[in-house]
């Protein structure tokens, strides 16, 4: 699943560590999501959407 997490994070000038702290996850998890190695769970995806004030569909898109 593709995502715009890196783009949204960069727009706010947050580091991966800062974003991880805001979402209560580790920096490695943020990196794994940004590099599309890992798709977050629904609760985490909603948390991300709420943090960036975007609908989930604008952040995460299916490959197909």
């Amino acid at each position, binding site marked *: 699943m593709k995502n715009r997490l890196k783009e949204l994070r960069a727009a706010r000038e947050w580091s991966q560590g800062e974003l991880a702290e805001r979402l209560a*996850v*580790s*920096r490695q*998890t943020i*990196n*794994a999501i940004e590099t599309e*190695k*890992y798709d*977050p769970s629904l609760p985490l995806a909603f948390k991300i959407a709420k943090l960036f004030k975007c609908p989930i569909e604008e952040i995460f898109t299916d490959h197909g």
Partner: protein
Amino acid sequence: MKNNHELKPLYLTLAASSVAGYFYVPKANWPACSLVIAACLLVTFLGREKIEDERVEHLKLKAIKAAFAASFILVFLYTWLIATIRQEGWRNQFLSAFDLIILVMLIALGLFHYWRWQDGWTGVAK
């Protein structure tokens, strides 16, 4: 299982000490040592990480699944090898349950930390 991640080096040191004790203490026996090693590795793997998030849980589950599969193959090959060696002294060298736990935990810990390292390494943190 709640466990302070800062105690993990202590558990690993205890496991290493058991290994060293087996080789250097004259009356040490492997069943007792393997029990201590297995317990330490189990607590290390099942204990909480510094930040216990969903990715950690996902990787631990993936690691233990792969470790069980790999261990089954290794133990099968080892057992087959032992069964075919007909020399005296080798016939009773089958693995105990603690030996199996040690093998599974070593593989699982290795895989988990390798995948965790990969998570943090690819891509540059800003």
